[in-house]
């Protein structure tokens, strides 16, 4: 995971690996210290993953024994219009929400990246929504603000727009979720700020001498120097966006409505697994998600050589 290491400050290279005999006390201590994590890893992650893979080929309702049905669940997924809807909703959210949020985060990070008074105050203020944005409280507030006759509706009609409630409108509920995630731009902003601090000021000075304008400096210096951080933010934010659940559940009252327009992938998985007790089907859904996220990660890492610039002295 060179990306994570490259994007993190206060990083010292790990001790070089000697192709030698390990010291006995190190081996014992290493595995001793690692025991809790190893138990957790096998009992709560690796083991359950294998079980879930097995269950995805079965029919299982939690009460009887799992019944092997082969790849039928995956076939059923392909024929399930609600599954297609969930994929569509989630992909729309990931593809639109993540870039919009990151663009806001980068723009505001650049605004804050100077030595003006109050910079620290604004940074803290802007970070706050990232911490509370996924809470039930905020989802309830958000719904109350965007319902029919709510504050946003009133602002709309005040400007002569007939929005109605965004929550109940299949065309406007997705923009509402995009706004909700964009509002939480604070966490990627903090990471961008840390990255911007590493860009050598001389580069900008040299570019200014050459007569470069602000846009030129942004494209030719900021973006390339920041590309490892952009890559990192893009990867993590999109992986997280695939998994949004709480706000979708609260805002649509667990239904994914109206007309399936907020049927996020994980919400549908929850409905199938824990409301209908179709655990095999839900497991197949979970594995499709793992494969999609895995593929996305793989593609991003493979193409990253082409656009991520790991400058020798940028760190």
């Amino acid at each position, binding site marked *: 995971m060179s990306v*994570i290491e490259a*994007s*993190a400050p*206060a990083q*010292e290279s790990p001790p070089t690996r000697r192709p030698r005999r390990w010291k006995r006390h*190190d*081996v014992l201590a*290493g595995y001793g*210290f690692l025991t*809790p*994590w190893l138990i*957790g*890893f096998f009992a*709560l*992650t690796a083991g*359950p*993953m294998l*079980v*879930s893979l097995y*269950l995805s080929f079965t029919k299982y309702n939690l009460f009887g024994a799992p019944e092997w049905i082969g790849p039928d669940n995956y076939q059923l997924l392909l024929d399930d219009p609600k599954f297609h809807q969930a994929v569509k909703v989630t992909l729309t959210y990931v593809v639109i929400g993540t870039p919009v949020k990151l663009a806001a985060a980068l723009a*505001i990070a650049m605004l804050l990246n100077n030595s*003006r008074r109050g910079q620290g105050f*604004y940074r*803290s*203020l802007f970070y*706050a929504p*990232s*911490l*509370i*944005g*996924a*809470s*039930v*409280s905020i989802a*309830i*507030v958000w719904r109350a603000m965007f319902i029919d006759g*709510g*504050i946003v509706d009133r*602002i709309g009609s*005040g400007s002569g727009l007939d929005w109605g409630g965004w929550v109940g409108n299949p065309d406007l509920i997705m923009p509402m979720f995009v706004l909700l995630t964009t*509002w939480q731009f*604070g*966490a990627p902003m*903090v*990471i961008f*700020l840390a990255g911007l601090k590493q860009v050598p000021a001389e580069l900008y000075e040299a570019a200014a001498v050459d007569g470069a304008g602000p846009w030129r400096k942004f494209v030719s210096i900021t973006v390339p120097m920041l590309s490892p*951080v952009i890559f990192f*933010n893009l*990867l993590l934010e999109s992986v997280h966006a*695939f*998994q949004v*659940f709480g706000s979708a*559940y*609260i805002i649509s009252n667990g239904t994914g409505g109206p007309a399936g327009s907020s049927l996020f992938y994980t919400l549908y998985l929850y409905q199938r*697994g*824990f409301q209908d007790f179709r655990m095999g089907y839900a*497991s197949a859904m979970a594995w499709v998600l*793992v494969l999609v*996220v895995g593929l996305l*990660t793989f593609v991003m890492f493979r193409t990253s050589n082409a656009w991520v610039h790991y400058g020798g002295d940028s760190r």
Partner: protein
Amino acid sequence: MKPRTRKLLGSFGWHLLALAIGVVVLYPGAWMLLSSFKPTHQIVGSVSLIPEHPTLDNFRTALAGIAGVSFWRFFGNSLLLAVGSVVGTVLSASVTAYAFARIDFPGRRLWFALMIGTLLLPFHVVIIPQYILFNNLGLVDTFVPLLIGKFLAAEAFFVFLMVQFMRGLPRELDEAAWIDGAGHWRIFRSITLPLMKPVLATASIFAFIWSWNDFFGPLLYLKNSDLYPLPVALRLFVDQTSTSDYGAQMAMAVLALAPVIIFFLVFQRYLIGGVATTGLKG
């Protein structure tokens, strides 16, 4: 224009822009807080932020609780879960991070890669088998499924955060202790752990807030409303007031969020530092 005037104007514009963003960012929170003092019919119907006739009725309704369970019971459940999460996380993640950052043993790189991999793994792939496991063990409707992972360093973020921090600590201290005959456990306890106070604070605050805000876990594992932490109680409350009593909903939302906001105001430097070093989460 004189350079000084220009500089002043630029500074003015910068502050204006930053303030405007601040207003947008703060608005939902301010709206929630101020609405909680309004009678219900004035919340949705009115554009005005300031309550005309402030009332505490909403808070009375919220504090009375729901389904025969008092608000303070929910609060206590949340507190128990959050404190349990902090204790578990600090104990297990610090030990795990020490192994990864300070001990050289075969397989370390592989385990570390797998640990990092779990950061990107959608947790949905493990919840169904985990649920079946806890169900078979008779642990559904207890706090065990919600806490056990914290004691087993299941959240890679915390391990990663601490590894990053430990790598910045000077190795000379370990080596000196080593020469004096201390083993790894002794070095961890007497040298590393005391130096880790700042990162332990960061991890504790994140663990507390995430547990406090967690909705999915309690929704899945807790059926008995006596055991509900605040987010699930809040959702039940919204359900049963049939989306009409917005005032009480807002009051309850404010009460549920208050500890998080207080934590944030007091500890924001630790939180932002944690995000900046690891580049993870919010």
